[in-house]
Protein backbone atom coordinates (compact mmCIF):
# COMPACT_ATOMS: atom_id res chain seq x y z
CA UNK A 1 0.00 0.00 0.00
CA UNK A 2 1.41 3.37 -0.96
CA UNK A 3 1.91 5.47 2.13
CA UNK A 4 1.96 9.24 1.95
CA UNK A 5 4.26 11.10 4.28
CA UNK A 6 2.38 12.65 7.18
CA UNK A 7 3.42 16.17 6.12
CA UNK A 8 1.78 15.64 2.70
CA UNK A 9 -1.39 14.35 4.39
CA UNK A 10 -1.44 17.36 6.71
CA UNK A 11 -0.91 19.76 3.81
CA UNK A 12 -3.98 18.16 2.20
CA UNK A 13 -5.77 18.43 5.57
CA UNK A 14 -5.07 22.17 5.91
CA UNK A 15 -5.74 22.80 2.21
CA UNK A 16 -9.11 21.03 2.28
CA UNK A 17 -10.06 22.99 5.42
CA UNK A 18 -9.31 26.32 3.74
CA UNK A 19 -11.01 25.24 0.51
CA UNK A 20 -14.11 24.00 2.33
CA UNK A 21 -14.27 27.22 4.32
CA UNK A 22 -14.13 29.34 1.18
CA UNK A 23 -16.78 27.26 -0.63
CA UNK A 24 -19.02 27.25 2.44
CA UNK A 25 -18.88 31.05 2.44
CA UNK A 26 -19.98 31.04 -1.24
CA UNK A 27 -22.68 28.47 -0.42
CA UNK A 28 -24.05 30.64 2.42
CA UNK A 29 -23.83 33.81 0.34
CA UNK A 30 -25.96 32.09 -2.28
CA UNK A 31 -28.72 31.83 0.35
CA UNK A 32 -28.67 35.61 0.57
CA UNK A 33 -29.48 36.12 -3.12
CA UNK A 34 -33.10 35.79 -2.09
CA UNK A 35 -35.07 35.55 1.13
CA UNK A 36 -33.44 32.89 3.31
CA UNK A 37 -36.58 30.73 3.77
CA UNK A 38 -37.41 31.10 0.12
CA UNK A 39 -33.92 29.97 -0.87
CA UNK A 40 -34.51 26.72 1.01
CA UNK A 41 -37.84 26.01 -0.67
CA UNK A 42 -37.95 22.65 -2.49
CA UNK A 43 -38.12 24.12 -5.99
CA UNK A 44 -35.26 26.52 -5.36
CA UNK A 45 -33.00 23.82 -3.91
CA UNK A 46 -33.71 21.59 -6.91
CA UNK A 47 -33.01 24.56 -9.20
CA UNK A 48 -29.64 25.03 -7.46
CA UNK A 49 -28.76 21.38 -8.06
CA UNK A 50 -29.82 21.64 -11.70
CA UNK A 51 -27.37 24.50 -12.28
CA UNK A 52 -24.11 22.88 -13.44
CA UNK A 53 -21.96 25.52 -11.73
CA UNK A 54 -23.71 25.11 -8.39
CA UNK A 55 -23.67 21.33 -8.69
CA UNK A 56 -19.89 21.50 -9.24
CA UNK A 57 -19.55 23.72 -6.17
CA UNK A 58 -21.53 21.20 -4.09
CA UNK A 59 -19.49 18.30 -5.46
CA UNK A 60 -16.23 20.05 -4.63
CA UNK A 61 -17.52 20.96 -1.18
CA UNK A 62 -18.50 17.32 -0.62
CA UNK A 63 -15.04 16.09 -1.60
CA UNK A 64 -13.18 18.69 0.50
CA UNK A 65 -15.29 18.07 3.61
CA UNK A 66 -15.11 14.28 3.22
CA UNK A 67 -11.32 14.27 2.83
CA UNK A 68 -10.83 16.70 5.73
CA UNK A 69 -13.36 15.03 8.01
CA UNK A 70 -12.20 11.47 7.51
CA UNK A 71 -8.55 12.43 7.91
CA UNK A 72 -9.51 14.18 11.15
CA UNK A 73 -11.27 11.03 12.28
CA UNK A 74 -8.17 8.97 11.36
CA UNK A 75 -5.98 11.26 13.48
CA UNK A 76 -8.34 11.00 16.46
CA UNK A 77 -8.47 7.20 16.18
CA UNK A 78 -4.68 6.94 15.86
CA UNK A 79 -4.29 8.90 19.08
CA UNK A 80 -6.77 6.73 20.94
CA UNK A 81 -4.97 3.47 20.23
CA UNK A 82 -1.77 2.31 18.60
CA UNK A 83 -0.47 -0.80 16.86
CA UNK A 84 0.34 -1.73 13.24
CA UNK A 85 -2.83 -3.77 12.58
CA UNK A 86 -5.10 -1.22 14.28
CA UNK A 87 -3.49 1.65 12.37
CA UNK A 88 -3.82 -0.15 9.04
CA UNK A 89 -7.49 -0.89 9.77
CA UNK A 90 -8.14 2.73 10.74
CA UNK A 91 -6.49 4.03 7.55
CA UNK A 92 -8.35 1.59 5.31
CA UNK A 93 -11.63 2.18 7.18
CA UNK A 94 -11.34 5.95 6.88
CA UNK A 95 -10.45 5.76 3.17
CA UNK A 96 -13.41 3.44 2.58
CA UNK A 97 -15.74 5.71 4.57
CA UNK A 98 -14.52 8.73 2.65
CA UNK A 99 -15.00 7.00 -0.72
CA UNK A 100 -18.48 5.76 0.29
CA UNK A 101 -19.60 9.21 1.41
CA UNK A 102 -18.27 10.88 -1.75
CA UNK A 103 -19.92 8.20 -3.91
CA UNK A 104 -23.29 8.53 -2.17
CA UNK A 105 -23.18 12.35 -2.18
CA UNK A 106 -22.09 12.44 -5.83
CA UNK A 107 -24.93 10.12 -6.74
CA UNK A 108 -27.40 12.55 -5.14
CA UNK A 109 -25.85 15.58 -6.85
CA UNK A 110 -25.65 13.93 -10.28
CA UNK A 111 -29.16 12.44 -10.14
CA UNK A 112 -30.67 15.75 -9.06
CA UNK A 113 -28.69 17.67 -11.63
CA UNK A 114 -29.99 15.35 -14.35
CA UNK A 115 -33.58 15.81 -13.17
CA UNK A 116 -33.94 12.24 -11.97
CA UNK A 117 -35.36 13.28 -8.58
Amino acid at each position, binding site marked *: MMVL*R*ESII*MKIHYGTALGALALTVVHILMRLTQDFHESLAYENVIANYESVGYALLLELLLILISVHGFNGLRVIL*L*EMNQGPTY*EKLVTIGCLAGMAALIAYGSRTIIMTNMGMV
Partner: protein
Amino acid sequence: MATLHPKLSDEHSQTVVSSTKSVKIKIKRSNPNVNSEERFDDFVVPIEKWTTVLDVLLDVKSHLDHSVGVRYSCRQASCGSCGMKINGKPALACFTKISELNSDTVTVEPMDNFPVVRDLAVSFERMINNHKKVMPYVIRDDSEIDPESGMREFLQSPENVDKYIQFSSCIKCGLCNSACPTMAMDKTFVGPQALAQAYRYIADERDKGKNKRLKVIDESHGIWRCHFAGSCSQVCPKGVDPAMGIQLLRGYLLGIRD
Protein backbone atom coordinates in the same frame (compact mmCIF):
# COMPACT_ATOMS: atom_id res chain seq x y z
CA MET B 1 20.57 -2.48 75.73
CA ALA B 2 20.01 0.42 73.39
CA THR B 3 19.43 -0.61 69.83
CA LEU B 4 21.55 0.89 67.08
CA HIS B 5 18.62 0.84 64.67
CA PRO B 6 15.55 2.21 66.38
CA LYS B 7 12.18 1.48 64.82
CA LEU B 8 11.40 3.87 62.00
CA SER B 9 8.19 4.94 63.65
CA ASP B 10 10.12 6.06 66.71
CA GLU B 11 12.38 8.32 64.70
CA HIS B 12 11.92 12.04 64.33
CA SER B 13 13.31 14.50 61.86
CA GLN B 14 16.85 15.50 62.80
CA THR B 15 16.74 18.79 60.90
CA VAL B 16 18.05 21.60 63.07
CA VAL B 17 15.04 23.79 63.48
CA SER B 18 15.24 27.51 63.88
CA SER B 19 11.60 28.10 63.00
CA THR B 20 8.43 26.55 64.23
CA LYS B 21 7.03 25.99 60.77
CA SER B 22 6.38 22.55 59.44
CA VAL B 23 4.79 21.03 56.38
CA LYS B 24 2.80 17.87 55.85
CA ILE B 25 4.10 15.96 52.85
CA LYS B 26 1.99 13.29 51.21
CA ILE B 27 4.12 10.92 49.18
CA LYS B 28 2.58 8.57 46.66
CA ARG B 29 4.02 5.11 47.22
CA SER B 30 3.98 2.20 44.82
CA ASN B 31 6.20 -0.61 43.65
CA PRO B 32 4.89 -2.09 40.38
CA ASN B 33 7.53 -4.84 40.55
CA VAL B 34 5.83 -6.23 43.67
CA ASN B 35 2.13 -5.41 43.32
CA SER B 36 -0.28 -2.83 41.92
CA GLU B 37 -1.03 -1.25 45.31
CA GLU B 38 -0.79 2.55 45.48
CA ARG B 39 -1.07 4.62 48.64
CA PHE B 40 -0.13 7.99 50.10
CA ASP B 41 2.12 8.15 53.17
CA ASP B 42 2.01 11.33 55.24
CA PHE B 43 4.97 12.85 57.06
CA VAL B 44 5.34 16.09 58.98
CA VAL B 45 8.69 17.79 58.50
CA PRO B 46 10.01 21.11 59.91
CA ILE B 47 10.88 23.68 57.25
CA GLU B 48 12.74 26.92 56.79
CA LYS B 49 11.83 29.53 54.19
CA TRP B 50 14.50 28.18 51.83
CA THR B 51 13.54 24.52 52.21
CA THR B 52 12.83 22.83 48.88
CA VAL B 53 10.58 19.85 48.20
CA LEU B 54 13.71 17.77 47.66
CA ASP B 55 15.07 18.86 51.08
CA VAL B 56 11.82 17.69 52.65
CA LEU B 57 11.95 14.36 50.81
CA LEU B 58 15.56 13.80 51.85
CA ASP B 59 14.64 14.67 55.42
CA VAL B 60 11.86 12.08 55.29
CA LYS B 61 14.24 9.58 53.74
CA SER B 62 16.99 10.21 56.28
CA HIS B 63 14.92 10.29 59.45
CA LEU B 64 11.39 9.04 58.96
CA ASP B 65 11.26 6.40 56.25
CA HIS B 66 14.43 5.25 54.53
CA SER B 67 12.48 3.27 51.93
CA VAL B 68 11.05 6.28 50.03
CA GLY B 69 12.17 5.93 46.41
CA VAL B 70 13.33 9.21 44.88
CA ARG B 71 15.89 10.00 42.20
CA TYR B 72 18.08 13.09 42.61
CA SER B 73 21.61 14.25 42.05
CA CYS B 74 22.77 17.87 41.65
CA ARG B 75 20.19 19.68 43.85
CA GLN B 76 20.51 22.78 41.65
CA ALA B 77 18.22 22.20 38.64
CA SER B 78 21.07 21.10 36.41
CA CYS B 79 20.83 17.32 36.21
CA GLY B 80 17.08 16.90 35.61
CA SER B 81 16.80 13.88 37.92
CA CYS B 82 14.21 14.95 40.48
CA GLY B 83 11.19 15.67 38.26
CA MET B 84 7.89 14.80 39.91
CA LYS B 85 4.32 16.03 40.25
CA ILE B 86 4.18 18.54 43.10
CA ASN B 87 0.67 19.53 44.12
CA GLY B 88 -0.53 18.24 40.76
CA LYS B 89 1.98 20.09 38.56
CA PRO B 90 5.17 18.64 37.06
CA ALA B 91 8.20 20.36 38.60
CA LEU B 92 11.74 19.74 39.79
CA ALA B 93 11.76 18.95 43.53
CA CYS B 94 15.10 20.73 43.98
CA PHE B 95 13.80 23.85 42.23
CA THR B 96 10.51 24.16 44.11
CA LYS B 97 10.55 25.85 47.49
CA ILE B 98 7.87 24.83 49.97
CA SER B 99 7.27 28.52 50.69
CA GLU B 100 6.34 29.09 47.02
CA LEU B 101 3.57 26.51 47.17
CA ASN B 102 1.47 28.48 49.69
CA SER B 103 0.14 25.29 51.21
CA ASP B 104 0.53 23.49 54.50
CA THR B 105 0.23 20.18 52.69
CA VAL B 106 2.41 19.20 49.78
CA THR B 107 1.48 16.20 47.66
CA VAL B 108 4.21 14.57 45.62
CA GLU B 109 3.56 11.93 42.97
CA PRO B 110 5.64 10.37 40.20
CA MET B 111 5.50 12.15 36.82
CA ASP B 112 2.62 11.24 34.52
CA ASN B 113 3.33 9.55 31.17
CA PHE B 114 6.34 7.65 32.55
CA PRO B 115 6.30 4.10 33.92
CA VAL B 116 6.94 4.08 37.67
CA VAL B 117 10.05 2.26 38.88
CA ARG B 118 9.24 2.79 42.56
CA ASP B 119 7.52 5.58 44.51
CA LEU B 120 8.68 8.85 42.86
CA ALA B 121 11.30 7.35 40.56
CA VAL B 122 10.19 6.77 36.97
CA SER B 123 11.76 5.11 33.95
CA PHE B 124 13.17 7.47 31.30
CA GLU B 125 13.60 4.72 28.71
CA ARG B 126 10.94 5.96 26.27
CA MET B 127 12.10 9.57 26.48
CA ILE B 128 15.77 8.70 26.00
CA ASN B 129 14.93 6.41 23.07
CA ASN B 130 12.98 9.21 21.39
CA HIS B 131 15.78 11.65 22.18
CA LYS B 132 18.28 9.34 20.47
CA LYS B 133 15.93 8.87 17.52
CA VAL B 134 16.16 12.56 16.52
CA MET B 135 19.99 12.33 16.41
CA PRO B 136 20.81 15.05 18.97
CA TYR B 137 24.25 15.90 17.64
CA VAL B 138 25.71 17.87 14.75
CA ILE B 139 25.69 15.72 11.60
CA ARG B 140 28.32 16.47 8.96
CA ASP B 141 30.30 14.54 6.40
CA ASP B 142 33.54 16.33 7.22
CA SER B 143 35.31 16.43 10.55
CA GLU B 144 36.75 19.01 12.92
CA ILE B 145 39.99 17.06 12.68
CA ASP B 146 41.82 18.32 9.59
CA PRO B 147 44.57 15.95 8.38
CA GLU B 148 46.72 18.85 7.17
CA SER B 149 46.33 21.60 9.72
CA GLY B 150 45.22 19.55 12.73
CA MET B 151 42.05 20.82 14.41
CA ARG B 152 39.67 23.34 12.90
CA GLU B 153 36.43 24.84 14.08
CA PHE B 154 32.96 24.73 12.53
CA LEU B 155 32.03 28.38 12.70
CA GLN B 156 28.58 29.76 13.40
CA SER B 157 27.24 33.27 13.64
CA PRO B 158 25.83 34.83 16.82
CA GLU B 159 22.55 35.33 14.90
CA ASN B 160 22.36 31.60 14.27
CA VAL B 161 23.10 30.82 17.92
CA ASP B 162 20.16 33.05 18.89
CA LYS B 163 17.85 30.83 16.84
CA TYR B 164 18.42 27.73 18.93
CA ILE B 165 20.29 28.65 22.11
CA GLN B 166 17.27 28.33 24.42
CA PHE B 167 16.71 24.76 23.21
CA SER B 168 20.27 23.89 24.26
CA SER B 169 19.24 24.42 27.88
CA CYS B 170 17.21 21.20 27.94
CA ILE B 171 18.30 19.02 30.88
CA LYS B 172 16.16 16.01 29.87
CA CYS B 173 14.15 16.15 33.10
CA GLY B 174 11.03 14.91 31.29
CA LEU B 175 8.65 17.51 32.77
CA CYS B 176 7.49 18.57 29.29
CA ASN B 177 6.68 15.00 28.34
CA SER B 178 4.88 14.56 31.66
CA ALA B 179 2.69 17.62 31.06
CA CYS B 180 1.91 16.76 27.41
CA PRO B 181 -1.70 15.63 26.83
CA THR B 182 -0.74 13.81 23.61
CA MET B 183 1.91 11.78 25.48
CA ALA B 184 -0.87 10.63 27.80
CA MET B 185 -3.01 9.37 24.92
CA ASP B 186 -0.51 8.26 22.31
CA LYS B 187 2.03 5.80 23.65
CA THR B 188 4.15 6.11 20.51
CA PHE B 189 4.19 9.92 20.25
CA VAL B 190 7.75 11.20 19.94
CA GLY B 191 7.14 13.89 22.59
CA PRO B 192 7.98 17.59 23.08
CA GLN B 193 11.45 16.93 24.50
CA ALA B 194 12.68 15.08 21.41
CA LEU B 195 10.92 17.48 19.03
CA ALA B 196 12.51 20.50 20.71
CA GLN B 197 15.91 18.83 20.35
CA ALA B 198 15.23 18.07 16.70
CA TYR B 199 14.62 21.78 16.17
CA ARG B 200 17.75 22.70 18.14
CA TYR B 201 19.98 20.76 15.71
CA ILE B 202 18.04 21.53 12.52
CA ALA B 203 18.32 25.27 13.25
CA ASP B 204 22.07 24.94 13.79
CA GLU B 205 23.88 26.09 10.63
CA ARG B 206 26.77 23.71 11.31
CA ASP B 207 24.42 20.75 11.03
CA LYS B 208 23.70 18.97 7.75
CA GLY B 209 21.25 16.37 9.05
CA LYS B 210 18.00 18.32 8.56
CA ASN B 211 16.43 15.92 6.08
CA LYS B 212 17.28 12.85 8.16
CA ARG B 213 15.69 14.36 11.26
CA LEU B 214 12.62 15.66 9.43
CA LYS B 215 12.07 12.15 8.09
CA VAL B 216 12.14 10.76 11.64
CA ILE B 217 9.56 13.20 12.99
CA ASP B 218 7.35 13.29 9.89
CA GLU B 219 5.42 10.11 10.60
CA SER B 220 1.97 9.23 11.94
CA HIS B 221 3.03 9.54 15.62
CA GLY B 222 5.48 12.36 15.07
CA ILE B 223 5.28 16.13 15.06
CA TRP B 224 1.75 16.40 13.60
CA ARG B 225 0.15 14.85 16.67
CA CYS B 226 1.04 17.90 18.79
CA HIS B 227 -2.17 19.78 19.69
CA PHE B 228 -0.29 22.89 20.76
CA ALA B 229 -1.67 22.76 24.30
CA GLY B 230 1.52 24.55 25.35
CA SER B 231 1.77 22.80 28.72
CA CYS B 232 5.29 21.58 27.85
CA SER B 233 6.54 25.15 27.67
CA GLN B 234 4.73 26.12 30.85
CA VAL B 235 6.41 23.51 33.04
CA CYS B 236 9.97 23.68 31.68
CA PRO B 237 12.27 24.70 34.56
CA LYS B 238 14.95 25.96 32.15
CA GLY B 239 12.78 28.32 30.10
CA VAL B 240 12.81 26.17 26.98
CA ASP B 241 9.73 26.61 24.78
CA PRO B 242 9.20 23.21 23.12
CA ALA B 243 5.79 24.27 21.77
CA MET B 244 7.45 27.05 19.79
CA GLY B 245 10.16 24.66 18.57
CA ILE B 246 7.45 22.31 17.32
CA GLN B 247 5.69 25.10 15.41
CA LEU B 248 9.01 26.18 13.86
CA LEU B 249 9.72 22.58 12.85
CA ARG B 250 6.30 22.37 11.19
CA GLY B 251 7.35 25.37 9.14
CA TYR B 252 10.21 23.31 7.67
CA LEU B 253 7.83 20.47 6.83
CA LEU B 254 5.21 22.76 5.29
CA GLY B 255 7.87 24.40 3.16
CA ILE B 256 7.51 27.88 4.69
CA ARG B 257 11.01 27.75 6.28
CA ASP B 258 14.34 26.76 4.75
